[in-house]
């Protein structure tokens, strides 16, 4: 079974030879190819070279497209801040106030260079590795994109105190999100990894998730032409998992290491795949043995769960993570003989 067969079987509940393993190594490709990050996050060929190096070095079952949400913000005029060992951040949001949205002309995913970069990176990866390895595109849902465009505090203020205004923004962003994301599927993405902040119990209340986040996700995800993994954004997700269950096209959930996976399984039912793994920011501080031990414990806990896959949690695996820790994560999944089949 190769990687793409393995992950597709995991998504559909078919027997697999071993557990899927999916460390998020978007950034790490730049380290492996010694590529300056401004090039890596602007040039699809450079990004694809980095991911080819990731595949050759670690043989994960999933390669990730650019984990670069500020880049989407940049297409809306946000100013980027570049760092030598991390993806760019937003220095200054592109849209200052809610009123600015009304006259704002949204960028076209099919022509804007920053958005084309995302699609072309996926396309190159898919062409190079078609039929061998799954390609995950990373994209924020419409409810979270405004944080990259108008800043987290302005968007929080809008969602909390001007729900009509927030919904007006969504009316503009849902078609944009659908076009951009379907373009990623058309380019060859196997699935979309989608960090959801404005449904997270660390960020918003149940009321906001229920009455704002969920209805938007229902509408937006129903229009997608491929499967979605809802990602925990680096904080526990269990407390709102019931509100996220049954979303259209959602094939699985990337849970936080602090979430109880038995309870999670009870809530989502037998269908969706649950992903879980050590939080990425901790990886540089662990030894390879510690990584292996943590992963073994997680795999053991989900021994009888045929729809469980090992990944890394939270953001991208940090630049300074020793390669042996990533090897240890993969090796533990490969060596584990659970009831995956």
């Amino acid at each position, binding site marked *: 079974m190769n990687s793409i067969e393995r992950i597709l079987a995991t998504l559909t509940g078919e027997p697999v030879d071993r557990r899927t393993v999916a460390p998020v190594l978007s950034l790490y490709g730049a380290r492996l190819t010694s590529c300056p990050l401004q090039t890596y996050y602007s040039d699809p060929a450079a990004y694809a070279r980095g991911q080819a190096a990731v595949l050759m070095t670690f043989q994960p079952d999933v390669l990730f497209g650019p984990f670069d949400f500020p880049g989407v913000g940049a297409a809306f005029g946000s100013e980027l801040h570049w*760092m030598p060992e991390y993806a760019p951040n937003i220095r200054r949001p592109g849209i200052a106030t809610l009123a600015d949205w009304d006259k704002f002309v949204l960028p076209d995913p099919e022509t804007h260079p920053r958005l084309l970069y995302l699609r072309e990176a996926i396309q190159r990866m898919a062409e190079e590795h078609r039929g061998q390895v799954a390609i995950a595109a990373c994209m924020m849902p419409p409810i979270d994109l405004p944080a990259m465009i108008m800043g987290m505090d302005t968007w929080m203020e809008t969602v909390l105190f001007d729900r009509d205004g927030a919904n007006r923004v969504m009316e503009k962003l849902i078609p944009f999100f659908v076009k951009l994301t379907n373009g990623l599927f058309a380019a060859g993405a196997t699935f979309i990894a989608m960090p959801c902040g404005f449904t997270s119990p660390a960020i918003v209340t149940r009321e906001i998730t229920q009455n704002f986040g969920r209805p938007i996700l229902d509408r937006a995800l129903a229009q997608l032409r491929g499967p979605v993994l809802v990602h925990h954004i680096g904080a526990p997700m269990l407390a709102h998992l019931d509100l996220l269950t049954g979303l259209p096209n959602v094939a699985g959930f990337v849970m936080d290491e602090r979430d109880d996976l038995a309870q999670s399984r009870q809530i989502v039912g037998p269908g969706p795949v649950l992903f879980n793994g050590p939080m990425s920011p901790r990886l540089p*501080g662990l030894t390879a043995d510690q990584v292996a031990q943590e992963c073994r414990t997680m795999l053991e806990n989900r021994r009888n769960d045929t729809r469980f896959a090992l990944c890394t949690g939270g953001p991208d695996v940090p630049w300074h993570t020793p390669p042996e820790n990533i090897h240890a994560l993969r090796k533990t999944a490969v060596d584990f003989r659970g009831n995956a089949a």
Partner: protein
Amino acid sequence: MNIQESLLEAIRQADRAGASALLDRWAAKHGTERMLTDVLDPMLSRIGDEWNTSGTFTLAQAYVAAKVAEDTMARLATQNKDVPVITGTKGPVVIGNIEDDFHALGRKMVGTFLRTDGWIVHDLGNDVLAATFVDKALEVGARVIGVSAMMLTTARNIRRLRDEIDRRGLTGHLQLAVGGAVFKVCPGLDKEVGADGTSGNALSAAGLFTELWQNSKKVKVIP
């Protein structure tokens, strides 16, 4: 339900308007002079406790709490023009996001809660260099610098601030508080970057600053 319970419930529901109406009613009955000490401070203290212990408090609710605190301070400033609302009894402190970090929301909330607690807050904003923090602290006579970072990469830049404090012979005299999402995920990171203390959330920062200020006073340093 008393005013604190009612306010707490409004904030749990992220209901800023409801909280404001509650404060209006309380002020109409009791006046505004004791609003800070009798209503706001105890309520924020309870939220801090709940945030620390239950793990169920959300960023949105904390944001509403900060807005309610700001609203209250603004109301007091308007209605008691002759009485200084921000007493500054606890002294000057400096806060900011470390070099390369632009995640301002948490820092702004910390600033609000510190002001409510009586600190004179000098907020340097995002992407602040180590030397700028120390220069400002010396200029205003601060004994505590509060630094925010959201990601592992930027949190590691705090080490430069630790080194700058030590290099200028201000170890202990100038206390270093750190906070941000990554410190919750990575236990021990605060020590790794050389912090004198950290708090799990924005509301606990006031308690931490008080403790660090006291620690600073035990150290005799001639800069």
